[in-house]
Structures are given as C-alpha cells and as structure tokens.
C-alpha cells in the first residue's frame, strides 16, 4: 500500500524536531469523570473529575513545572549554556528534568533520598541518563533538599538550581496551564478544586488561576494525616521544611488523609474505575470523597499526579 493510500488519520508527517514532538505535548491532559465511586453519594448532586496528569511526557504532573522552570531559567539567563541542572526531588520532578535535559541537551543531576522506588530511579538513570546522587533515606526528602543545597553552594557557577520548592515558575506553570484547562474542560462549572501538597506548586498555581476566573471557587489542600506516612510525593507540612512557594492564604481549607485511606482508594480506583494510579492520586480522591460527604452539591476536580504502576505494585519497596 502506498503512503498516499493510507487513511487520513495515519498520514502523519515525519517529525524532525524532538522538542516540538515531546515537550509541546506537556499539558492539555484529559479530565476524567469518576463514574462509579461517586455513587457512594446516591442521588446527591455531586460530580467528581480527575485530571489525568500521567498522560504528560515523563508520566506525571511534574512535567509542567519542570519545563516552565527550565524555560524561565534559560530566558532569564540564570541557566547558561554549558551549565548543568541540579535539584532535589522525590521522583517525578526528577524524571521530568531528566527527559527535558535529554531533549534539550543539558546534563541533569538529581539529589534524591535513597528510598525512592527502584522503578523511578531506573527511568531517571537508565532511560534518560541523569546522574543520581542519593541522600540518607532516614532523612527523607528534606535530606535531599539539604544535600542539594550543599552541592550547589560548593559549585554555584557549574549548576543551574531550579529549586522547585522556592521557584515561583513552579506554581505559575499551573496558573497558566492546569487552571485554564480545568476551567475550559468543565465549561466554568468547577466549584471545588483539590490537590495534594508536596512542593505545593500544583495547589498554589491552579487555585490562583481558577479563583481569578471564578472568585467563588473553593480550593483544598490534601495533606497526609501523619508525619510518618506512605503517600509518595506529599508533605506533612507541620513536620517538614516548608516550601517557600507555599502560602496558606491561597487555599480555603486543609483535608487530612491517612496512608491507609489513600491505599484503600487506590484499590477502589483500580477496581471500580479501571485506572492504575499512584498513592497521591488515591489521597486526592479520598480527600474529595470526604469533602463531597459534607456538601450538598458541587463539581469537584482533583489532580491525579501520576500512575507509576510499578511503584504501586511494589508498595513502597525500594
């Protein structure tokens, strides 16, 4: 069969520009309606939608802030030609930096706690050739933050440090993309927005963006209920280094979710909705279900940050 005889949907052009092909696919993720779990509320007028962020290149919501921080760094001159990127991460941001570095052609150094799951380490190091520097697992993410800062301070001319915990470009990515997409996808009907807090960039940016479009919108931080928890990527703020971009005035309320509740919801999402999502997605929907139980009606949108099927199956092994 000649190429000209192919049906129109298969006639795709040859792609010569990787940056366009991959990086321009970051964002514009689907909004999925939670159809079955929501039946817990019977005939109550509750709709819940999940933003499927694992569809992004690099497999998570972190592709958005990682790309924005890199592009803003290049535009401002903070990230000069020949410099290497270094940052601390508990996983997803690292995978995103590693992919972007591979495409744009810069070296990526990632400082991560030794207990980040094997699957993520493999993607960062083997697939995208990032240099991994492991910090003491006993100190969790905060140990990685401190070690990264130390390495950067020893050699500030060598590295561009995006510093996802303190870089406004992190939340701006969500204000300018995630929030607009949710507004358009729900045709402005969204009434409640919920996101887990790690760097807090997703919650800060999306809440600001949505509230600018609809001042009546309520936004909620989903937080691990315990300091010792297993919800990957989320922070228990009271017992952690608080990110510089975190501002409690941006959201309306905090909803606490235990690790067991998050794990249980991951199983329900798999069994009842047919989606394999990460623990932080389970936490987000568990938070939305708690909120939905105490309101009469609403159009709720939650962020599902990743799928990480292998990590879910490994249940915290590393």
């Amino acid at each position, binding site marked *: 069969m000649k190429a000209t005889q192919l049906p129109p949907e298969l006639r795709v052009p040859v792609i010569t520009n990787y940056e366009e092909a991959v990086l321009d696919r970051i964002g514009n993720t689907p909004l999925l309606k939670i159809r079955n779990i929501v039946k817990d509320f019977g005939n109550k007028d509750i709709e819940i939608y999940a933003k499927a962020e694992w569809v992004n290149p690099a497999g998570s919501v972190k592709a958005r802030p990682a790309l924005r921080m890199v592009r803003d760094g290049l535009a401002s001159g903070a990230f000069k030609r020949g410099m290497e990127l270094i940052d601390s991460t508990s996983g997803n941001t690292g995978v995103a930096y590693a992919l972007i570095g591979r495409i744009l052609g810069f070296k990526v150094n990632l400082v991560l706690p030794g207990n980040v799951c094997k699957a993520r380490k493999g993607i960062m190091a083997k697939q995208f050739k990032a240099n991994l520097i492991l910090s003491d697992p006993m100190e*969790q*993410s*905060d140990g990685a933050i401190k070690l990264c800062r130390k390495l950067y301070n020893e050699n500030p001319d060598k590295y561009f440090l995006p510093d996802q915990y303190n870089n406004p470009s992190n939340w701006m990515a969500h204000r300018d993309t995630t929030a607009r997409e949710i507004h358009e996808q729900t045709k402005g009907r969204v009434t409640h927005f919920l996101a887990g807090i790690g760097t807090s960039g997703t919650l800060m940016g999306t809440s600001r963006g949505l509230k600018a479009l609809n001042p009546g919108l309520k936004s909620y931080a989903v937080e691990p209920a315990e300091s010792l*928890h297993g919800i990957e990527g989320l922070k228990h703020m009271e017992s952690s280094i608080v990110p510089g971009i975190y501002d409690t005035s941006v959201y309306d309320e905090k909803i606490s979710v235990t690790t067991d509740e998050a794990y249980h919801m991951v199983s329900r999402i798999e069994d009842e909705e047919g989606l394999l999502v990460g623990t932080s997605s389970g936490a987000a929907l568990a938070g939305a279900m708690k909120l939905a139980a105490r309101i009469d009606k609403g159009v709720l949108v939650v962020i599902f940050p990743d799928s990480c099927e292998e990590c879910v199956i490994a*249940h915290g092994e*590393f």
Partner: protein
Amino acid sequence: MAINVRIPTPLQRLTGGKGDVSASGTTIKEVIDHLESNYPGFKEKLYSEDGELRRFINLYINEEDIRFIDSDNSTVKDGDTISIIPAIAGGSIQ
C-alpha cells in the same frame, strides 16, 4: 552490647530527637515492644490497627529487608543495626 535502631526523622519526636537508640530483644517484635516501653506511641506508628506492619514501613536488619527473612519474627542479635525506613515522602523536623 545491645541492638542499635536507626530512627527516621518523622519518628524522632518520640525519641527526643535521637536518630539512633539502643534496644534489646531477640526478634524484631521484641525490639519494637522494648522501644514502645521506652518511647510510648512508637508501636502504633509502625503497625496498623489490625496488628500488621504497615506496608509503607520498611525494616532492615543490617542491610537485609525483613520481608525477605521472617517479617517481624526475624531474629536479631547483639550488635545488629535495625533501620526503620518509610516509603519516600516529606518529613524532617526543622
């Protein structure tokens, strides 16, 4: 000689800020019971309500994951180091 237990930062609130504590016992269970008697509230952080070790808590005897030995019935001896490592998340006390 006793058994050395490495405490992750989120649990150091219970141990008065100490990252390493010593304990005694012949199995992981006994060591945790001993820690509970010295630091009340310790055990409930590691076990779920139905008495199972929480899935996101990883316990190592020296370099070995107890999942591959005999879970919390694994035996320990003087001089061993037990590390309690949660799945990755945030959480040190500043």
